């Protein structure tokens, strides 16, 4: 074919540029695909939220909560919320450190995010154990554990992903081909955060 192609095939510098370009395109594809996936995933949460609103608005005030239960305690979940929302900023700092090639700064902030996520999960577990109703206690019990549980699974997934990314940061030249894994994990973390804010408003504040 054209002479341009022949030249580029022999010139090692041009070859490297092309490989870098292909890698970059692949990385963009993965990020694009991941965003598409997250948008789709958000519809599951949206469905659960809509279901919760339908149940809550159609139930009468007396039969919404299980018998003998007055309402959810808000203080501990609020602390949990603040920790989770703040962790979104911490993970952002971690990413910035990585951009500046400050690897230890990245690891420090990244580990802090993981700690905050784990604290959230621990707080969630403590709250679950203190509640006097279970999964089978009517529609409120069902939706409460379904929503917090499904969200908690996402937080757990996020922390596990962060663990993998932390481990990978010790592989030499891991970021030579881009930071897709870190960027995607971080995006996922923000997503989990936003979902929690909606969930907190719906379940804890709107009682």
């Amino acid at each position, binding site marked *: 074919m054209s002479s341009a192609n022949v030249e580029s*095939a022999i010139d090692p510098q041009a070859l490297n540029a092309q490989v870098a370009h292909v890698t970059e395109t692949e990385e963009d*594809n993965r990020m694009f695909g991941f965003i598409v996936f997250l948008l789709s995933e958000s519809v599951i949460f949206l469905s659960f939220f809509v279901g919760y609103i339908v149940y809550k608005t159609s139930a009468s005030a007396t039969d919404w909560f299980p018998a003998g239960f007055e309402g959810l305690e808000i203080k501990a979940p609020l602390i949990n919320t603040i920790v989770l929302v703040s962790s979104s900023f911490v993970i952002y700092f971690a990413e910035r450190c990585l951009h500046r090639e400050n690897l230890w700064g990245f690891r420090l902030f990244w580990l802090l995010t993981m700690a905050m996520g784990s604290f959230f999960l621990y707080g969630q577990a403590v709250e679950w154990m203190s509640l006097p109703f279970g999964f089978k206690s009517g529609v409120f019990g*069902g939706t409460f554990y379904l929503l917090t549980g499904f969200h908690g699974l996402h937080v757990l997934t996020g922390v596990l992903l962060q663990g993998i990314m932390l481990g990978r940061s010790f592989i030499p030249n891991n970021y030579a081909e881009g930071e897709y894994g870190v960027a995607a994990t971080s995006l996922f973390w923000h997503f989990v955060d936003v979902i929690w804010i909606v969930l907190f408003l719906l379940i804890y504040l709107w009682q």
Partner: protein
Amino acid sequence: MSNALLEVESPRLPPQPETPESWRRFFTFSTDHKVIGIQYIVTAFVFFLFGGILAMVMRGELITPEADLVDHTVYNGLFTMHGTIMLFMWTFPMLNGLANYLVPLMIGARDMAFPRLNAVAFWMVPVFGVILIASFFVPGGPSQSGWWAYPPVSLQNPTGNLINGQSLWLLAVALSGVSSIMGAVNIVTTIFRMRAPGMGWFKMPAFCWTVLSAQLIQLIGLPALTAGAVMLLLDLTVGTSFFEPSRGGDPVLYQHFFWFYSHPAVYVIILPIFGVFSEVFPVYSRKPLFGYKVVVVSSLLITTFSLIVWVHHMFASGTPGWMRMLFMFTTMAISIPTGIKVFAWVATVWGGKLRLTTAMLFALGGLFSFLFAGITGIMLASTPFDIHVNNTYFVVGHFHYVINGAVVMGFYAAIYHWFPKMTGRMYYEGLGKLHFALTFIGINLIFLPMHPLGLMGMPRRVASYDPEFAFWNVIASLGGFLLGVSTLPFLLNMLSSWSRGEAAGDNPWRAIGLEWLISSPPPHENFEEIPIVISPPYGYGSDEPLVSNNPAGAVNP
């Protein structure tokens, strides 16, 4: 980017170890989109045959008014599994197969965006297929609650086992959803990001537009069904009460979750077939697709409208009056973009130099069926009429004209049209035409009588019926057996042509499109050199070439 950039193969993509010409590659975890496409289509067709056998047993039962061939319980399981297999195991995988095979070729890409994800999504199909079919062998038999699994019927668990027909059904449907989401993410990313240089949105073939529109529906709608299915599964296994009315649950909410996805799902099925029509008619009429831009934009309109019509399945579910009015209106409005398409296809064929090959015959037959189904669809959209024929055979006749008439015939049109490209061999035209005649007569013989039956008031999903309905039922059953027989010449044709058909050449139909510029079957990397697209598709009767012959002088995309 210029063409030269894509010329060099990335060292990160080593050549596939499997030999490209061996049939064994269809039984491997291949990441080649062409292999996966054929894997999808063949697997789905096997399930189609199985679902068809279930349907023939049902028609055999319905040939007499009494429930004598199978009893009512078995019959319930038969129609549930027939519907579920045909939708989740036949149409979705089949259309994913067509999209997998054709989209990268049509947009000038070497493969899908995520080849490994693609292979995983395919290999889930046999897994959930086996799970679903295994439910025939668990105590209590398969699910009997119909393909929509409405609670509280679907919450009944007479055997008391955790593993029962209904829970296996839910598991299979949930896995099918995961597989479909994987496929949708992959296809949408591929279409958005991997088009050849120069292929702007309005230079993309209509098939890719319809596939994109369909996959967007999957992404938006499917999670709602997943949410409903998860809640139903929890009700059934853990004992929650989301949909259990006796304990405060709301069974109608399930119907909303279900139809929010499952109505748009029919557009997931029909849209790619619209794309097939838009590809096939111009080739065999030697004319450009009439109103190309309007046709492709109408696909996105259908996507939008399809998400706001679901309540028309629930006119008889205690739905308030304002909701009935609203959804009657939106349902009728969706016939505008579909009407645009029908008009455009007729205008494409009109005055063309027609070649009535098997593919063209099937496309015309599919168009005819779709038009008929569209007319009964408008009737059903009207709430008063819908209440009258709700859950009767009129509804069954209507949607089988869409799914068997338009979709299955559209599928056959696609297979005959692209068979020479997929295999490099030509099929036998005579057998193809016999196949078309049997299919077309069979479809009309089985599904047309369902309309008078429905108007007379025969309910669907019953194994026995009043003897006054016998006449039309006998005709429908004979049509059903004929439809079953019609697959035999197809199977014979495909198997013998694939193994010993004549060589087809690269472009036997003299069609215009990127997939026809490469050899048949296409090489592993599809394009030796990524083409640069310079004209819109369907340039029949135009001298302008589709791709630039001079990559160096080409403009940027």
